[in-house]
């Protein structure tokens, strides 16, 4: 009964809007709260939240492709990395401001997105797409490793500058609050774009393609156009995260930025929270980033625990934590039935013992 009530509360669109509004309001107020409460590890908490929002934004952009459209493209980190490298190399070689990177970086990512989309468009089965995109991202990684002259290869590219001051806001790295609000704006904008896109007619077309390409085609959905459109939007959004990452972390290595490790994290976050929703990737990204941060003390076992969490959630909640209403209701019913069962048993037991007492009394008397 309780589970039903809880889910009824979460099903109402008003309470949904209230929860998301509260979530963003808390995020917005967080630095102020920390400053007022004079918490000692202020910049540490802000750093963790910055990473949370960055990965949430990235996972949201990937969710458009994988969750809503069912295209298992494992090349999302390539768009991220291309934008990051573009912006930082422009900054170093052409001495352009990192803010210009926010214009050029995502555009470059979009171009690469188009290049990735063309071979993927020809493939329909998911395993083929997975293998093709894995190979594409590996090719990009190897190219960036081999062009040591420009990218410094595995040594890491670190000559970029941080964001220069704009509107009197100083991004010198001593204070994390400017970065916090910058990524907050990017994150909120990406969440908004994803939510609007999911509700639009394109969003419906995307879902139709995910459920059945043939059926969608027969109903007049232009598959090629929709796929390319979503690829371009997704890579454009990922580009923003990349530019921010480059000028925030200030070091890029091909394996960190283009490697499969990053993609695995996005998969874990998306699967964990629930695909094809806006709330799922956000929840997953925050949960996994914070868990990993708290497990920092036992560094050796960190990935072990990560893998176990992923295995267990995938086995018992295949749709992710926020998408498994039916599963939770089933469990709730099981618990309820178990309780009723127990009560009945207890009653029987007590009545039996009563009768035994009666018999005993009779014998005694």
């Amino acid at each position, binding site marked *: 009964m309780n589970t039903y009530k809880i889910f009824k509360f979460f099903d109402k669109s008003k309470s949904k809007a209230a929860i998301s509004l509260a979530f963003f309001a808390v995020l917005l107020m967080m630095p102020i709260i920390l400053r007022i409460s004079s918490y000692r590890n202020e910049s540490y908490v802000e750093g963790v939240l910055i990473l949370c929002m960055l990965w949430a934004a990235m996972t949201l952009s990937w969710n458009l492709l994988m969750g809503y459209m069912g295209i*298992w493209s494992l090349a999302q980190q390539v768009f991220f990395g291309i934008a990051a490298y573009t912006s930082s190399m422009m900054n170093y070689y052409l001495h352009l401001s990192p803010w210009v990177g926010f214009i050029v970086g995502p555009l470059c990512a979009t171009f690469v997105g188009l290049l990735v989309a063309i071979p993927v468009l*020809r493939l329909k089965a998911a*395993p*083929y797409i997975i293998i*093709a995109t894995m190979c594409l991202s590996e090719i990009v990684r190897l190219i960036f490793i081999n062009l040591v002259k420009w990218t410094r290869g595995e040594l890491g590219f670190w000559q970029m500058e941080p964001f220069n001051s704009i509107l009197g806001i100083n991004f010198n790295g001593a204070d994390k609050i400017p970065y916090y609000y910058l990524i907050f704006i990017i994150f909120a904008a990406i969440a908004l774009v994803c939510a609007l896109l999911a509700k639009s007619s394109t969003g419906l077309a995307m879902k139709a393609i995910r459920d059945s390409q043939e059926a969608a085609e027969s109903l007049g959905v232009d598959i090629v156009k929709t796929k390319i459109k979503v690829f371009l939007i997704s890579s454009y959004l990922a580009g923003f995260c990349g530019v921010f990452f480059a000028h925030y972390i200030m070091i890029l290595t091909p394996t960190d930025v283009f490697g*499969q490790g990053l993609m695995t994290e996005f998969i874990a976050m998306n699967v964990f929270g629930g695909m094809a929703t806006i709330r799922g990737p956000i929840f997953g990204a925050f949960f996994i980033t914070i868990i990993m941060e708290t497990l920092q003390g036992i560094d050796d076992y960190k990935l*072990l625990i*990560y*893998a176990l969490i992923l*295995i267990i959630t995938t086995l018992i909640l295949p749709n992710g934590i926020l998408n498994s209403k039916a599963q939770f209701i089933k469990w709730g019913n099981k618990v309820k039935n178990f309780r009723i069962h127990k009560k009945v048993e207890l009653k029987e037991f007590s009545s039996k013992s009563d009768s035994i007492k009666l018999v005993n009394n009779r014998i005694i008397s």
Partner: protein
Amino acid sequence: MAVIIQNLINGIISGSYYAVLGVGLTVTWGVLKMINVAHGNFYMMGAYMFYTFSIIMGFPVIPSMIAGVAAVFVLGMIMEKFVLAPSLGRGKFGDTPFILTLAMGILLENVAQLVWGETNVGVPYFNDSIIKVMGITMASQRLIVAAVAMVTLIVVLVIIKRTKFGWAISATAQNTFAASLMGINTKQIYMVTFGIATALCAIAGSLLAPIYGINPWMGESIQLKSFVVCIVGGLGSVGGSIVAGLLLGIIESFATQFLGSGWQNVIAYALVIVMFWFRPAGIFGKME
């Protein structure tokens, strides 16, 4: 001329173990209908098992290789039984098993880091001698690798084509439901097939351990290479994988000679894209 023949032979030798790895992956795909991204990590486990039995416990080469392969075979079956089996058939194309193998890969890599440490370890060559014939130099270690790989491939082919168990595997691959109607225990077939695939990885791992050294991350590039072999040969086609493996080995060997070792993997992965463009079902796969 000698250079070309040398490269050809080198290519066939490295291609033979690509073929072994590719056959393992393609059998998993054909029977379990999922792609296994932990394949490279089982290869790594095979190498470490061999290291454990031969160096730490001090067994001779052949018994420790057999013990290592058997250990990985059992490990693969346990993994399938407890992690993959409950989720097979879920989702549209096996996306849940895909995520599970991804997690399994991380798990195995981390276990290897915890148990054997984050350093390179080595195993001595089985045989140090070098053979020279008509200006072509060959380390006998590599010849042993190629010979064992060829024998393994022939054994696998014979098992699949000629034995009752192999027919059961083919039947399950074609139609699980019909196979179960014919009295085949398909769940058991799934388990044993996954075990065989991991055992093939372990054979390749223990053969290559003396040449390339052992570390927890050695599976990563091998993983994608076995995908390349699978795609070029056609997903699910055992014979195609063998030919594709040899082909990949030869192409890589020439690419290393003429372009430098940095670009050899780029060529290998670009092969997949080209293949997808012109013939998505692979050389020997049937068009669906």
